[in-house]
């Protein structure tokens, strides 16, 4: 069949024939992809700054947020008080800065607790199905039926006001969304060929769940996580606004908004400051969530 070969063929070196393209660092790839989304990047920088402010808060606040100054109360923004003063003459800017600490810790802890619980329930429901799935899913459906705030109010009404209870309330209404998302992500990954392979190798259930399935579902969870932080901040602020929140001496954005209601006509600056800060923070988290979702989508550049 073949004609005479011209010279003896030599095996091309294994290295040349089997060479792989240069290894690509996954992390760098995703970081660069995220950086291409300008709005998300700006939002991320804002959040980073916010976190820094929350951590070092009292150190950079120009005034002590609790010290009243009855000589200058309800004054608008001036050079001395950049955002004005409240009804007790306390500096609004300082209160905003120190208040960030409470708002962020509340929201973050609530979402972390809710995500952890919701993820665990979703994974188990998706993997084992049957009665576990029915309980978790119907439970989530019930919780979903309530508007978030109403549920949170109900919980705080039962448990009483206070920071810890606010965190618990927000965590509770965060659980169902994670449970749902993780359950469907689990179902999807469970049916992959490589999971079947793991089973055929003799992998026990626990290992399949945590080593093979869970890493494939993290992607779905991350985006929801960032989005829910925004919701949680809003919820915590709303609860404080309604008077269920923390102790009144500690500054908190929602509580500030609540008292500002009484002075809307005379001192509108008291409404703008906390209002705008809440708005920007929630927006920033949502934009970062959007950016993350786009980054993790393999079909988008």
């Amino acid at each position, binding site marked *: 069949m073949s004609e005479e070969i011209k010279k003896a*063929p030599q095996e091309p070196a294994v290295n040349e024939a089997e060479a792989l393209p240069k290894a690509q660092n996954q992390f760098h790839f995703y970081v660069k992809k995220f950086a291409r989304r300008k709005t998300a990047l700006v939002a991320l920088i804002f959040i980073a700054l916010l976190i820094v402010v929350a951590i070092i808060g009292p150190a950079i606040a120009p005034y002590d947020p609790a010290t009243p100054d009855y000589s200058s109360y309800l004054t608008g923004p001036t050079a001395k008080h950049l955002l004005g003063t409240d009804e007790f003459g306390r500096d609004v800017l300082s209160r905003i800065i120190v208040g960030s600490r409470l708002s962020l810790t509340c929201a973050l802890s609530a979402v972390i607790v809710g995500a952890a619980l919701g993820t665990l329930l979703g994974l188990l429901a998706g993997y084992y199905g049957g009665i576990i799935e029915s309980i978790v899913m119907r439970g989530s459906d019930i919780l979903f039926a309530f508007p978030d705030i109403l549920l949170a109010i109900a919980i705080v009404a039962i448990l009483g006001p206070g920071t810890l209870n606010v965190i618990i309330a927000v965590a509770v209404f965060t659980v169902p969304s994670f449970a749902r998302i993780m359950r469907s992500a689990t179902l999807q990954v469970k049916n992959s060929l490589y999971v079947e392979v793991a089973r055929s190798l003799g992998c026990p259930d626990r290992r399949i769940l945590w080593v093979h399935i869970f890493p494939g579902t993290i992607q779905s969870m991350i985006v929801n996580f960032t989005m829910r932080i925004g919701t949680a901040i809003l919820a915590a602020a709303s609860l404080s606004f309604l008077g269920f929140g923390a102790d009144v001496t500690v500054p908190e954005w929602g509580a500030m908004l609540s008292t500002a209601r009484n002075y809307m006509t005379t001192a509108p600056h008291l409404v703008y400051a906390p209002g705008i800060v809440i708005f920007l923070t929630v927006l920033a988290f949502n934009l970062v969530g959007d950016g993350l979702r786009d980054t993790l989508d393999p079909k988008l550049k």
Partner: protein
Amino acid sequence: MEDKILEVRHLTTEFKTGKNTAVTAVSDVSFDLARGEILGLVGESGCGKSVTSLSIMGLFEDTAGRVAEGEILFDGMDLTKLSRKQLRTIRGKRISMIFQNPMSSLNSCMRVDAQLIEAIRLHNDLSHGEARKRAFDMLEAVGIPDPEQTLRSYPHQLSGGMSQRVMIAMALCCEPEMMIADEPTTALDVTIQAQILELMKKIRDKNNTSILFITHDLGVVAEMCTRALVMYAGRIVEEASVLDLFANPIHPYTKGLLASMPRLGADILDLTSIPGSVPDLSAMPQGCKFAPRCPYATARCRESEPELLPVPGAAGRRCRCFLYGADAEKEAKA
């Protein structure tokens, strides 16, 4: 060559990968297709055969792909220079295409009769009733046992073989002069494949339709085609009549391909493989694209790329290789 229906000259197709970057999927492809001939375009995955066929049909508008260079002369007209409107009058009427997976090429939300009638009425001035009669006749002609039942079905209710016959009927309904078949039987079972190949041969015999048959299966090429082009990494590496190609392959890739093909009656000890894998489009080696896997590669092969040149002493054969093409003679003489 006698009456040519298609002449492709130096076709190069690129795909944009970024703002200023592009990969070349097909480079410097030139060949002719005569009337009534079945020409095979053979290669493995990623060699550019599908991209070639899509370029001919002009199906890259609005995508990241574009024909960067070259001419595609269909019956004398340069398809690359036609407007969209003009291309549309040719597509389906004078050139038609059959795709690999009939399940995804037929619209799953439309009944078969609706799709066939649409195809017919696009190019013919017929009433709805007349078009349906034509559709019925076409289905009968492609060997569907119960055309009325099939007309009333949705694509997902048909089997793979039936759907492919419907696709062929759709491709033939305007009696095109040329048909491009892109892996038409790859997704079918072997006994169904045999039926479809017989059908296509019948069609060529009856209507003198030229067929550009794209496949990776050399067995199908041996059975269906009179001439064949072998592609690798976006380039034609060998062209020959099918008899010559199998009896006397010249390009090392063709030789490797034939030697690695499992076939009835051969022993596994006779089977050799081509080491390594197809180069990534965005990281092509300098020089001959097959050199990293070629047992005969020389330093010259790794530095510069050979051209597709006629093989001396063999009519109608071309080869892209320093060791075997027209250069080789010069080398040998030197």
